[in-house]
């Protein structure tokens, strides 16, 4: 069954997770993604060189993280530093609905592929420029990766234990959410084009998206003059109590419990045999519990400490209390029956990488086929097919371009292993 974006074609100059993650999302929804890349900067995606590597041996087509971010795409290897290479890219534009790029501001303009130039060729193009701080403003030239954006936006400072340095985020959350927001921008553009037939340009800054994701903290600082400081795992605004991670039996094993409703509180007290807490009328309300949060936390922790986290979670959920084990990736892959039921981890086979797991989409959509279906492309795997099928290049021209090192391809396993 085709995906909802079947028939949408993307000319993809994005790299890394914040950029290339957005076109991954479009690919899982059925769009055709043409990655324009090259084995050397500036069109090289450094993610191709990152670990972990299949068999522990580096190589352009051996990177596990690159593979994760680029499932379901096509790779067209063009040397964009040559005039002939730029001309091929320009020839592809009329065939594409979307152009997405995540270079430093200025690179696409140098190549003659900025929005104004591209829309002169394809007026209804949806064009996304994704960068760290956006194309304009005093920090437009600043460099950013996920942790930079998290630090700048306040996401890092707001997460941690009280009176300690920030714990921040232990991974590039804003690379994921940058990718998600970039995909959302492209889809807004496509939806507007569907209604009005017009193109659109989006100037996306990963750091600015981070700021917008502070949630209600934004109004707390702007309207209350609040200074937001971390409160560990307790709810920043007291909307849940108890709300914490409690130590369980075994090494570094933790259970998260959140309570808001009186029914949940009663069920929690009953499950952990806290008759004394259940009997206190002042603790039935959220405000009453917040006034005794230390005491309540100590009581729950005393119950969880001798218990297996997973068993405690099941007992609490069965009683109607929101509870969840703090899972590692190993837990998610091997011990989470719901993720297994919904098939979040899809296995795909690739001759170089072997059979590996890929994170699939969090949705099913009736009437559509969505999700991860084919592995990431070897560098240049689709160059010949795309230039032949879309642009009608004859075989001899492809040979000439390859001999002149303007395009490259990888057809055989041997060639894919060689780079």
């Amino acid at each position, binding site marked *: 069954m085709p995906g909802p974006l079947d028939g949408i074609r993307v000319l993809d100059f994005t790299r890394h997770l914040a950029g290339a993650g957005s076109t991954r999302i479009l690919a899982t929804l059925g769009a055709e993604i043409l990655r324009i890349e090259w084995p050397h900067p500036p069109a090289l995606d450094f993610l191709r060189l990152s670990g972990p590597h299949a068999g522990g041996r580096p190589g352009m087509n051996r990177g596990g993280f690159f593979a994760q971010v680029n499932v379901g795409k096509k790779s067209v290897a063009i040397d964009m530093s040559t005039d002939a290479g730029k001309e091929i890219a320009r020839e592809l534009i009329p065939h594409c609905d979307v152009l997405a790029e995540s270079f430093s501001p200025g690179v696409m303009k140098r190549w003659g592929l900025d929005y104004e130039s591209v829309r002169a060729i394809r007026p209804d193009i949806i064009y996304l420029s994704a960068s760290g701080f956006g194309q304009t403003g*005093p920090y437009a030239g600043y460099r950013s990766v996920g942790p930079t954006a998290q630090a700048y936006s306040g996401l890092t400072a707001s997460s941690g234990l009280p009176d300690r340095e920030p714990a921040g985020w232990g991974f590039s959350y804003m690379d994921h959410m940058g990718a998600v927001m970039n995909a959302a921008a492209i889809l807004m553009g496509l939806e507007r084009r569907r209604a009005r037939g017009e193109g659109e*340009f989006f*100037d996306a800054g990963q750091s600015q998206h981070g*700021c*917008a994701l502070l949630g209600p903290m*934004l*109004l707390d600082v702007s309207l209350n003059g609040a200074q*937001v400081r971390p409160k560990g795992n307790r709810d920043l605004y007291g909307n849940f109590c108890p709300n914490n991670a409690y130590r369980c039996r075994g090494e570094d094993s933790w259970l998260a419990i959140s309570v808001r409703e009186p029914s949940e509180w009663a069920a929690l007290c009953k499950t952990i045999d806290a008759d004394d807490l259940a009997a206190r009328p002042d603790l039935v309300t959220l405000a009453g519990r917040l006034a005794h949060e230390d005491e309540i936390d100590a009581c729950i922790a005393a119950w969880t400490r001798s218990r297996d986290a997973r068993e405690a979670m099941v007992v609490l959920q069965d009683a109607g209390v929101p509870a969840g084990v703090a899972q590692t990736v190993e837990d998610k892959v091997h011990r*989470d029956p719901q993720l297994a039921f919904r098939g979040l981890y899809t296995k795909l086979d690739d001759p170089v990488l072997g059979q590996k797991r890929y994170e699939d989409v969090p949705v099913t959509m009736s009437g559509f086929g969505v999700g991860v279906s084919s592995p990431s492309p070897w560098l240049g795997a689709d160059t010949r097919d795309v230039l032949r099928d879309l642009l009608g290049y004859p075989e001899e021209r492809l040979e000439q371009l390859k001999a002149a090192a303007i395009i490259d391809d990888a057809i055989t396993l041997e060639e894919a292993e060689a780079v």
Partner: protein
Amino acid sequence: MSRTLEHLTVVELAGPRTEWCGKLFSQAGARVVLVEPPGGAETRRYGPWFQGQRDGESSLHFWHYNTDKESAVLDLTTGHGREAFLRLLAEADVLLDGSEPGGLEGLGLAREAIEEANERLVHVALTPFGQEGPMASWLGSDLVHQALGGQMMMNGYDDMPASPPINGQGNQAGHMAGSWAFIAALAALQAGKGSFIDLSVHDACAGMTENALPQFDYTGKVVTRRTGRHASVAPTPAWQHRAADGRYINAQLVNVSPRAWEGLVSWLDEHGMAEDLTDPKYFVPEIFREEADHISDVIGKFVATKTADEIFHGAQARALIFSAILNPEDLLDDPHLAARDFWIELDHGEPEGMLRYAGSAFVAQNSEVRPRRRAPRLDEHGASVRGEGAGR
């Protein structure tokens, strides 16, 4: 200027799970009708509160997530309420439904009845764990979802024994799931036919932990949390340092180019604080890696002599990807956000007047994606939405 999605109509059943997706639509100009139960949406009772006023019209949580929306109270437990709801759906493009699995069916609003009202409707159902499966009836929260999703076990402290994994703040489980709901709904609209979208918040969170899955799948190893930096299999040097003004700096030293390294070392050297980093041996990647803790120490000592802003801008001028770790309130007078018109004012009428809000992070050239109107008071648009007085 026109608004990007001004042609769309969205019906949102008020609830914590749908509100971010609803805001993504409403700030882009879609007409979003928030259907609230008698007594109002649950999140009208969420803090923080506007200047300490704890009432149903003063929740800043509600204000933040419901800009531009219309509010109509419909009691879906009554036939009258259900009829009005189905009439609304007949004219809508998207339904955002955060009810628990089977929740609407229990009210006599089975999926078939909704499809009958509008076969082209995109019905997005956001549930904690999906419509079916062994955990489908379980309950979630932001904390519970970031625990089960794997975010928490990657955040925390490795220099503090027995310290807990840490939840990222700001309602991020809701953002991860709500953003995906927005994407899936817009994708379905491209095909021009209706769809029932079953979104699991748990799936959305579990699928966003960067390199943890490839590390495990390729090496069998599990990453563990490190203070203020990436969770990793093996220990890594600190990259969070305290500046002279007490604020912290994120001084990540991954993929440092030779030019950036030269800039950093000469900067330290200007202040007589480069120690032995001027030695060209550090251009050798293996030595750079072996000496990472020492390099981190030298940078930490330098950071301690400057303000966070001096380090942030000085480092960026030298092509280093450092940032000051800003507190949320620091954004209020950040010059870059000001230049990009991040902050806006919305009219609350009397007595509050114009109040300062965050705009959106979407900057478009030919249309606009930004809030224009404060969140609705309870049932503010009820009469027109229900067709009262309109002869219907």
